[in-house]
Every structure is written in C-alpha cells, then in structure tokens.
C-alpha cells in the first residue's frame, strides 16, 4: 500500500523539475537568511555579555548559524539534482546520494524546530543568568579603580539609560549596595561615620540611586538622593511618584528585549522549515517518478509516491535494516569463532 501515490505524465514531471529548481534556490536564500538571523542574534547577545553570567542561551544562535549553512548546502545539491533530472543519462549518478539527502533534510527541519523550542524553553536560564550578572554589575559599580571591573560603572550606566531601566528587579536594589567608592567618602565627617557604622558589613548604604536611573520624561528635575524621605524634597511623595526614575528592572527589560527578538525570529524560522519540507517532498516525488519511467519509453507516464509501502511497514523495514547492521559485527565474530572451532575439529 503506497503512500500518497500521484500520476506523473511527462509534462508534469518537467514542470515538477522546474518548480523544484526554483524552490531549491528559494531554499538556499532561506538558508542564508537563517544564517544571518543566527549571526544577528549572537551579536545582540554578545553586546550585553558583560551582564550575563553564563552563555547557555548562545546555543540558539549557534544552532541557527550551523543549520543555515547546512540548509544552503543541501538545497544547492537539490538544485543541481533537479537540473540533471530530466536527462536520463545524467540522473543515475545522483541516485545513491538521495537517501542520505532525505535523512539530512529531515535532520535540518528537526534542528530548526528544536531551535525555536529552545528559544522559549531557555527563557528561565536566561533570566537566571541575567540575575546573577546584573547583581555582580551593581555590586562592582563602584570599583572603577580595580582592573577587570573598572568598566562596570560605564556598562551599567549605559545599560540603564539605553533600556530605560533601573537596578536588577527595581530601583531599590541600589539601596542595598554601596555604589559610591570609599575614595569619594569623607571619613572624617560624622554623617559618613554614622552611616558606615549603622550596618553589619560597614558599608555606606543610602536611599539614593545613580544618575542613569533618572527618567528624562519626568516633569521635575531628577531626584536621586533621599528617595524614601518625603520631607527631604518639596512637593514630593515617595509612594505616588512614578515618573522620577525608571520603574522597570533591568533584568525584566533585557528578558523582554530578547524574548521580543525570538518572537520576531520564530515565524521566519517556521517558514524556512515549511519551505525545506516542500523541497523534500517535491524531490521525493521527482525521484520516485523518474525511477518508475520505462527506459524504452522515456516519455510515458509514471507513478510517484512518498513511501513505497505504508508508514508502519517502512518503519519496520528500517528497524530490521538497522538491527541487521548492528548484528552484522556480532555475527561476523561468531562465524569466525565457529570457523576456527570447525577447523580445529577437522584438524584433530
């Protein structure tokens, strides 16, 4: 029982070959598009690499880049095959390569689908990585004189201004960290000494934030210090003030940004998958219809199908072939031992 059998007169075979040639070139472009999407995503992730703790999320753009290149290769091959397909002399050399080609094309589709799934599944890992990275960034904000950390201040300031966010979860994260270096604190002043003594770790904590948290859309000049003290500023209420600083946390801002990117890339990848599947199906039909052509009558009708037997039977066939291949090694060793034993028996 053949799967999805179709009749192919000569005219239809010719049209199928032409259509497949066009499709395979489109698929090459789609492969290039996938590769460039991977490169773009990787560049965006690398731009903020300083606030990320690990690089687990990089598996998504890596898959996209690799699969993009493979897609370009296999579709160039498909284009070449269908160019030669209507010439009965040039087509046979390509036949042995077609079965591995189907396997490779299937793998490409599976990998692309897995890239899309991973981009959503790894969101939790991304968030964790950003949480740790941002926490470190905020902690080392003041260490502008420590080599290896001296650019953290600039990185965090730039990040907060570009993404319009403040702190890790929100602006209160800055209250728990000493973000002013000791170099700029006057330890002879009573106020500084009191503040440093007021907590266990001896840190200068204050209810203030850096200037990069300021919201330019606020109608009043930015209030950075004594944020929780309503009396410190005229006409100011801490609880109801919304426009003074950025309300969003940088972790949420970055996760939203990257998820937005993945959401835009997702449909593109799905269309590449469907294009690849259509190339696969068309090439299979072309292959089987050309196999069915009578060599004495090359212009006659022929049948094309996807699978020679039904799905279950094909899977059973594949299973037995695989088992045979696996057992091939074992049977050979057993045979040799038997042959050796026979030889000894004969000798003795």
């Amino acid at each position, binding site marked *: 029982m053949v799967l999805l059998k179709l009749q192919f007169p000569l005219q239809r075979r010719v049209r199928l070959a032409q259509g497949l040639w066009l499709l395979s070139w489109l698929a090459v472009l789609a492969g290039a598009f996938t590769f460039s999407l991977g490169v773009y995503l990787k560049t965006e992730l690398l731009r903020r690499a300083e606030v990320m703790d690990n690089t687990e999320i990089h598996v998504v753009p890596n898959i996209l880049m690799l699969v993009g290149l493979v897609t370009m290769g296999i579709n160039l091959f498909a284009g070449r095959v269908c160019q030669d397909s209507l010439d009965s002399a040039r087509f046979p050399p390509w036949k042995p390569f077609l079965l591995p080609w189907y396997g490779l094309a299937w793998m490409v589709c599976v990998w692309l689908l897995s890239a899309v799934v991973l981009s959503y599944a790894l969101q939790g890992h991304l968030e964790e990585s950003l949480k740790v990275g941002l926490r470190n960034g905020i902690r080392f904000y003041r260490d*502008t*004189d420590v080599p290896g950390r*001296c650019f953290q*201040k*600039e990185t965090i*300031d*730039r990040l907060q*201004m570009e993404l319009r966010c403040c702190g890790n979860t929100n602006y209160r994260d800055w209250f728990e960290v000493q*973000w*002013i*270096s000791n*170099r*700029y*604190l*006057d330890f002879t*002043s009573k106020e500084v000494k009191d503040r440093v003594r007021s907590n266990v770790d001896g840190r200068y904590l204050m209810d203030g934030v*850096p*200037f*990069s948290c*300021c919201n*330019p*859309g606020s*109608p*009043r*000049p*930015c209030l*950075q210090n004594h944020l929780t003290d309503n009396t410190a*500023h*005229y*006409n100011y209420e801490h609880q109801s003030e919304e426009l003074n600083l950025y309300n969003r946390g940088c972790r949420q801002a970055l996760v939203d940004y990257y998820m937005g990117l993945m959401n835009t890339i997702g449909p593109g990848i799905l269309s590449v998958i469907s294009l690849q599947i259509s190339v696969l199906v068309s090439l299979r039909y072309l292959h089987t219809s050309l196999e069915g052509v009578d060599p004495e009558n090359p212009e006659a009708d022929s049948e094309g199908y996807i699978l020679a037997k039904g799905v279950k039977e094909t899977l059973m066939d594949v299973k037995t072939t695989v088992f045979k291949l696996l057992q091939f090694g074992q049977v050979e060793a057993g045979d040799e031992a038997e042959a050796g034993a026979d030889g000894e028996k004969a000798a003795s």
Partner: protein
Amino acid sequence: MAVLKVKFTKTNRDKLAQVLWILNWVSVVTGVILFSLGLFLKVEINKRWELMAERDLHYVPNMLIATGLIACGINFLGGKICYDCADTTKFLRWKLLMLPYVICTFFFTFCILVGALMCYGMRGELEEALDLGLRDAMRYYKDTDTPGRCFLKRTVDLLQIQFQCCGNFGFRDWFQIQWISNRYLDMSRREVVARLRSNVEGKYLMDGVPFSCCNINSPRPCIQHQITNSSAHFNYEYQTEELNLWRKGCRQALLEYYTHIMQSIGFTVLIIWLFELSVLTGVRYLQTSLENVLRQGDPDSESDGWLLENSFVETARSNFNIIKSLGKCNQIDTANNGDPNINVPSTAYYGPDNLPSKQIPMAS
C-alpha cells in the same frame, strides 16, 4: 572655428549612442539617489525642529528633492532619445527636440551644481538657528506645565544624553538660567528666598546642571550640584575635574553632526554633477555629429561633432543678437515713418549690368 571638434565614423556614432543610452539609465538611478538624499536631509532637520529657531533651512533639501525628480525625468527622456539615435531614420523624429533638450539639460546641470554648493553654504544659517533654538529650549526647560513647551525638557535631556554634550556653549550656560520650576521650590525656606532675591530678575540661579549632563565615563558618581564649590565635595577640585560632566556644548555637537551629513551629501551631489556633465557632453557630440550627417546626406559617412559651432565669443554674440531681435519683434520700425510696407530700394546684385528692376507704377 568649432570648439573641441571630434571626427565620428558610423560605428563610433552607434557606439556612442549605445553607451549614452546605458549612461542615461545610470543617471536615472543617480537621480533617485539625489531625491533620497534630499529626503534624508529633510527628515533629519525635521527630527530636531524643536531645537532650531525659525529659519528657512528647508530650501536646501527641497532643492535636492526637486532636482532629483527632474533628473529622473530628463535622463529617462535622454535614454529614449539616445536609444533612437543609433538609427538615422528614428533620429529624424527627435531632430527638432534635441537642441532644446541639450540646452535644458545644461541649465539643469547648473542647478545640480547650485544644489551642491548650497549644501556647503547652509552651515552659517544652521549655526544661527541652532544657537537661538538651543537657547530658547534651555530657557523653557522648566516649563513642563506649559502646553506647547511641555516636552522640551525631555527633548533637551535626550539630546544631551545622545550627543554627549551639555548646555549651548558649555555647562556654564545652565548656571545663567533657572531650570528648576517654581512648582518644586519651597518658597517658605530662607535659602530659596535669598537666592531668588540675589539677582535682578528674581530667578533661582544655581551652580548646578541637570542629570543629562553627567558623563558616564566618570570614575566617580556624578556631581550635579555646587559644581564650582570644591569644598562641597570630598576629594574634588573644580578646575581639574574633566570627566564629571560632558565638556562639549550641544550647539557644537549638533553642528558637527549636521555638517558631517551635509558635507557627505554635498560631495555625492558634486560627483553626480560631474557624471551628468559628462553625459551631457556625450549627448551634445551625438547631436551635432548626427546633424552633420544629415547635412552631408550620406548616413554612413564620417561626420564632425563639436561642442559649439563657432568659438565662445561668436556664439555668445549671435545668441545675444537673437535675443535682441526677439525683443525687437514687437517694436515698430521708425525708419519708414512706421510703415513697414514702403518699398525701399535694396542694394542687391541683380545681374551683369547691375540695373535695378523697373519700379511698378502705382495705380493712381
């Protein structure tokens, strides 16, 4: 004595026509480029209209847009003409149009040159517009409750952050204006009232700047208030501190930005002008050589092509005379008492004896 005369064989003429056809199509593309450059400049100027005072800066991008569109049209027509010029019979169709076409294209290339030079010349007006516009924007920084000015604070803050600049000329410009609105000043406090009274206009002036002036490369948290007071901050010296705020003035930053854009655009337009000029020269040679071929009668023969039939001076003189006679067309000739029909004996050469013809007796 023709100007830059060149001999053209039939194959030369055909090849010239083909090359010019391709070049005219390339010129259509450059016309599109010119149009998009003008559009880009217009968009860039419009993006910061709030920071520019009322000055007529739009004539430069409008000129570029108009020239771009006209270039597309003229070169499209030129391509059609040159395509037909390869065949002498088809050339007859365009024969009468070609000279006006060449003249129009000559004036049009002159317009492109004017457009390129205007790009370079716009700088002075732009500087003035930016100076006044930024000064007003800073003055209205605090007016976030006045309709029409409520977004100026945001615009100025984003400008200073994006272009890494502070104030009009430098950060000291903020010391001379009140940039904190009275809504946020506690008038019951003594210091506030004292500060307001300390100057003639009753403005709350301070040696502080908005947060958008802060330099992100500074190793220390930003010092925005009491900038000139070295003792107000620990380990701070006002004169030697360079990284705390942005040092550049926003006028200079914006001017540099726009000058860079306009110089690139001006340079591109000059290149396009040279290209158009070369296409025009080719078309002129093609026109004159084909006209000479028609004059000679044999379509396959060699012919001369030139830029001007006579020298510059003679051509100018003859054109001037044509223009003068065009002007005289409407004037009455006063030599014959205003009657142009009076039979004035001419001094023409009649025959071997030079006898004048008998005058026709007037009917009485």
